[in-house]
């Protein structure tokens, strides 16, 4: 079995910005342990001399001409926002008061 702990899952949830409930953490600890056991076998064949592939069809230097093209209007850009203030996205406080 892998060494996934509830504390680890809680930390991962914090990093991923998801407020998991204690029950979800318990379930995910179990699931993650099982999944990691199954997928750890990738290291069996991944030898040091095998290059990594990040992209199926390698492309490099995708450029376009530096010309102005129409983009979203302010109204369009804000149309899906849960909150706005004039022409801007309104966000909750960035810094905690503590």
């Amino acid at each position, binding site marked *: 079995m892998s060494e996934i702990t509830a504390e680890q899952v809680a930390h991962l949830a914090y990093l991923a910005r998801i407020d998991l409930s204690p029950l979800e953490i318990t*379930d995910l600890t179990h699931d993650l342990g*099982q999944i990691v056991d199954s997928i750890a076998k990738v290291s069996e064949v991944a030898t040091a001399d095998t290059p990594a592939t990040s992209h199926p069809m390698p492309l490099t230097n995708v450029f376009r001409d530096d010309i102005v093209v129409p983009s979203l209007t302010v109204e*369009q850009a804000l149309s899906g926002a849960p909150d706005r203030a004039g022409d801007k996205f309104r966000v909750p406080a960035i810094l905690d008061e503590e």
Partner: protein
Amino acid sequence: MTYLTKLSAAALSELLVSKQVSAVEATRAHLDHITAVDTDLHAFLHVAADAALNTAAAIDARRAAGERLNPLAGVPIAIKDVLATQDMPTTAGSKILEGWVPPYDATVVARLRAAGLIPLGKTNMDEFAMGSSTEHSAYGVTRNPWDRDRIPGGSGGGSAAAVASFQAPLALGSDTGGSIRQPAAVTGSVGVKPTYGGVSRYGAIALASSLDQVGPVSRTVYDAALLHDVIGGHDPLDSTSLTDSWPSMAAAAQAGLKDGALKGVRVGVIKELSGDGFQAGVTQRFTETLALLVAAGAEITEVSAPNFEYAVAAYYLILPAEASSNLARFDSVRFGIRVNPETGSLTSEHVMSATREAGFGAEVKRRIILGTYALSAGYYDAYYGSAQKVRTLIQRDFAAAFSQVDVLVSPSAPTTAFKFGEKLADPMAMYINDVTTIPANLAGVPGMSIPIGLAPEDGLPVGLQIMAPAKADARLYTVGAAIEQLLEARWGHTMLSQAPALTPTEMFASEEGAV
């Protein structure tokens, strides 16, 4: 007008072009059928009836005025809810995007509209395309038209069920690890994952950017080819879009209908994608299809792809890693819902965390956490780094195989459609279901699923997967159309004409002798 829903897109196109049927009539027939059967099946999350009829009327007016239109102008189409549509909600099956109407169209949607196809609505899917059964949609399951107690596949179960139940002749799907091909297999329809970069991803809500590919869903190989020709080709808005010029897929499909189209075609059977774990009826229909290929002059060779054994493991590291990064954009600021935490201070960080807790379903959370783990310092090399190396090995397996054969074949899925709930409790059981389809995504090569019969033990559809080298998508259409023609000649009917009639349409179906 119910017969209009039974026609292929190609056949409907002929009636439209010759003005025997109007686009409004064709659209209304499909909308009526949706009303009759979709309350039960739930293939659609949104139906845009008024907009569809207005679009159809405009097409009729242009055609009446003598304007030269794409042959598919006036043909209705369903769109997977992962694709941005500026006149319809786009949720990707997630609560976090409930009600979101994007300010722009995905390139593939813009191309459909430019060709005059009629968008009927948005189809159901596993949340953010994470799943193989459509059970992970936040808006309820889609039922398989062949058996209402079974899954329609996933993630694109809605698109596959829509075409299989004659609610639309065409649909768009997206395929990250089999989400077009596996639903096609279990619903008796056709689905194609094009070469990575062959179809634009602009406006497709990203799951795993190096694996995602948009593609056609249909009832015939030729229809899929017609749709592929509309949506494919370079898009400057997608930096991974290939700049190649592509041959006509429709012409390639037609070439497959000629006598001797399979003569001398070298077909590789992948040793690792057969045997243990494959349902008996799936193996039986697959073996019979190989015999049919031999009789048609194809050369069958067994090829080995030893690293495919590691494909599922690599995929479930690469996909969650990319997904955890892509889904970071759901931050409750620019789009989607915002949920305030019940306790604690109302900072951006806390609001984001509360929103994601409320907005994401269990499978999405599972994969984000898994991806975050795979990318963590200390684990990165062992997991994500190794998975990327496995990706190289799988590409090498494909290269070795394609040095010997023209196309590779396997069953599209290890089993026929399973029952709701059967694999929900065990994530790995669900994941392993994609063992046949995942290698193509890891390597970027194109794949197609076509129906090859019903499994004797359960009477449910079985699919054949055909894969070709990268950029050789046309080869899939030639070989796929040839096999489809051979099978239909042997059966004396199409696959989907054998699907059980859905209750409200029973009387029409029996009148037409379709059952």
